[in-house]
């Protein structure tokens, strides 16, 4: 749909992702063996013909720039539109790092106004889902909504999730920030919104002038009465990463073939940066079950219930259980890891045994040798 532009917030929840976002934005957090979170937002936009995109970054954005380059791997190296990346301090008026989405959007008002599109989709980048924005748009028009808020069903296990209360027609009457984690399946905001561009500009300018910073807290929560905000329940697999625990849980969930097929094929292909790795080599003695393995791995040991990113080496006699090993990892002979999230280029030397717990997976930071 060429009448919609997209805006992606590359940073969110970073403080809760601890070591995993020490060197990167949430958007460039690796997921599912060969992807980064932003691949889902970019691919969903491209598959819905939304090709004029702005990406707002706060810090640590070099890994993101390296991943996106000119956007060619998503077919976003366009003469018209394509990707514009906005680092902090992008405008003269930005005297400090933006303190929230309202300030961030205010700093790129010129970009938002410049495009010929009438509508805009705003999204966070901690979401793995395969979303067709054409359907969202149809629902937006059919409901006569001012704002369409994408929602999903989940247990609010980490706090600060926004639960929605809606009427029979699907209009949101209240947005409540959950303070106590609960195991009750609840409809929550995905932090993805569709609205008219001119409405967004009005809301952002008005709120900025009043000194407001937080889009959810200062515009949406108090706006339920005056704005027609409709919920759009997102279909299929939705993975939202709020902290290390949910990152681990969602990584394990995609081992389910039905959920994975849903994530990768529901509406269109999920694209990512091409790295030209060779196919993965299984050596005699390899033993691999219920695992996702990217290209370029060399496996001589045992891998169970795990995700291996590109170029991971598993030596003979090594065991990887219930773990995630990111690109370039090396698990040496006789080493045994379980409930581990090993960031890029981690080496676990021979005969070391390390493990976390399912409820508390242990993170080994980038480039470390254990």
């Amino acid at each position, binding site marked *: 749909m060429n009448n919609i532009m997209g805006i992606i917030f590359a940073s969110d929840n970073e403080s809760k992702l601890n070591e995993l976002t020490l060197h990167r934005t949430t958007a460039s957090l690796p997921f*599912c063996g060969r992807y980064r979170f932003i691949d889902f937002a970019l691919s969903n936009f491209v598959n819905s013909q939304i090709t004029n995109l702005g990406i707002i970054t706060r810090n640590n954005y070099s890994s993101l720039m390296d991943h996106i380059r000119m956007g060619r791997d998503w077919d976003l190296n366009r003469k018209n539109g394509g990707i514009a990346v906005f680092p902090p301090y992008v405008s003269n008026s930005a005297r400090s790092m933006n303190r929230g989405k309202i300030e961030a959007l205010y700093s790129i008002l010129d970009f938002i106004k410049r495009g010929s599109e009438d509508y805009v989709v705003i999204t966070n980048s901690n979401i793995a889902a395969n979303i067709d924005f054409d359907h969202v748009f149809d629902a937006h028009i059919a409901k006569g909504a001012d704002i369409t808020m994408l929602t999903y069903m989940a247990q609010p296990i980490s706090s600060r999730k926004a639960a929605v209360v809606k009427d029979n027609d699907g209009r949101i009457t209240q947005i409540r920030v959950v303070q106590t984690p609960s195991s009750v399946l609840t409809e929550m905001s995905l932090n993805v919104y569709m609205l008219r561009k001119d409405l967004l500009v009005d809301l952002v300018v008005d709120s900025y002038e009043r000194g407001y910073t937080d889009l959810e807290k200062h515009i949406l929560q108090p706006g339920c009465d005056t704005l027609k905000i409709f919920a759009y329940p997102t279909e299929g697999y939705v993975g939202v990463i709020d902290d290390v625990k949910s990152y681990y849980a969602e990584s394990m969930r995609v081992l389910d073939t039905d959920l994975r097929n849903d994530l990768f094929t529901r509406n269109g292909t999920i694209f990512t940066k091409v790295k030209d790795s060779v196919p*993965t080599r299984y050596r005699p003695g390899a033993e691999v079950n219920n695992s996702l393995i990217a290209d370029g791995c060399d496996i001589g040991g045992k891998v169970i219930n795990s995700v291996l990113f590109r170029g991971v080496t598993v030596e003979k006699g090594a065991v990887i259980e219930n773990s995630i090993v990111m690109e370039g990892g090396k698990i040496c002979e006789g080493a045994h890891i379980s409930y581990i999230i090993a960031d890029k280029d981690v080496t676990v030397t021979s005969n070391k045994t390390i493990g976390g717990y399912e409820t508390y997976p242990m993170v080994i930071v980038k480039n470390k040798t254990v």
Partner: protein
Amino acid sequence: MNSRKKECVAMLLAGGQGTRLYSLTKDIAKPAVSFGGKYRIIDFPLSNCINSGIDTIGVLTQYQPFALNQYIGNGQPWDLDRLSGGVFVLPPYMKSKNSDWYKGTANAIYQNIAFIDKFSPEYVLVLSGDHIYKMDYADMLSEHKRRGADCTIAVIDVSIEEASRFGIMNTKEDGEIYEFEEKPKKPKSTNASMGIYVFNWDKLRKYLIEDEADSKSSNDFGKNIIPDMLADGQKLYAYKFSGYWKDVGTINSLWEANMDLLDEGSGLNLADNGWKIYARNTAEPPHYTGRDAVISNSLITEGCEIDGDVVNSVISTGAEVCRGAKVSHSIVMPGAKVCEGASVAYAIIGAGAVIGSGAKVGKEQSGKDGNYDISVVAPNYTVKDGGVVDAGAMVE
């Protein structure tokens, strides 16, 4: 077209029908045939070119060119989408006076003299699109220049028994070629031509024009151009290549080259970041190995779902091996599916083919003198549930 001067232009002969690959090349040209899980044969010469610093390549196609054209596209996967140069697909075309299919390898280059002239190159590198190898053409070119040759031909040492299957270059001690024998019954040497030539463009241009004027000529490099140049006393040199090289023009050689990927002693190693082989990527998720899978000594590519037994095999992008299925010593090409309980041994399963539940393709064998009876299932063909394809049989 921006045609800044280029020192060397590569011309890749990709028009061969590949009849000895039978059903695998029924709908696609030989260079577009799948290899090694995620590659196509043409990825090797294209990647060699870019890794050797040659960024201007004409790809000569005429047989079933559609899949190949689409695959090459703008050349981006090989970093060949350039403002000046890049990759150009060159099918035969209508000219004002006459037009013709490419009659032979030399005629294919002859018909594209105007294309090459646009880049005013000093040298032209002629390559074929049916070999698996990694080679630094820049080194060959510098040898060519150092010797002041008119033509340099890459040769590889083969056994004396094999020599009668190749074009053999008989050379003096310093590598100068004094005689060329096509498939000699009694070979004098074991320098087999690899079908890779560097020519001084002005010389080659002259010989192509003369060859075209000769109505009796078969317009072929091996049969006409090289013997003519030798007869005229031009300086032809052999360039010795010692790495892995294989002509994959037959079912057995294609199968063997894939098996060589599994054998670390074969010399064919693609996991070398200093000389990457690039391929057009299909954006598939990582492969999934299920709870019942048993995999040994095999290559598995992204997008695969494996829940059966796979041993000594190459499983290509997006292929599926279901629970209880067994695949051994085989190549499963992209998107093919081996259903529950089926067995596949010593076979090539074409792209998109389906081996029905309980079907049996090929059989385990020990091979006589290294010769195996390889079964072939044509691309997109379905072997019915419980069906049988005998060892060495081909179904389409």
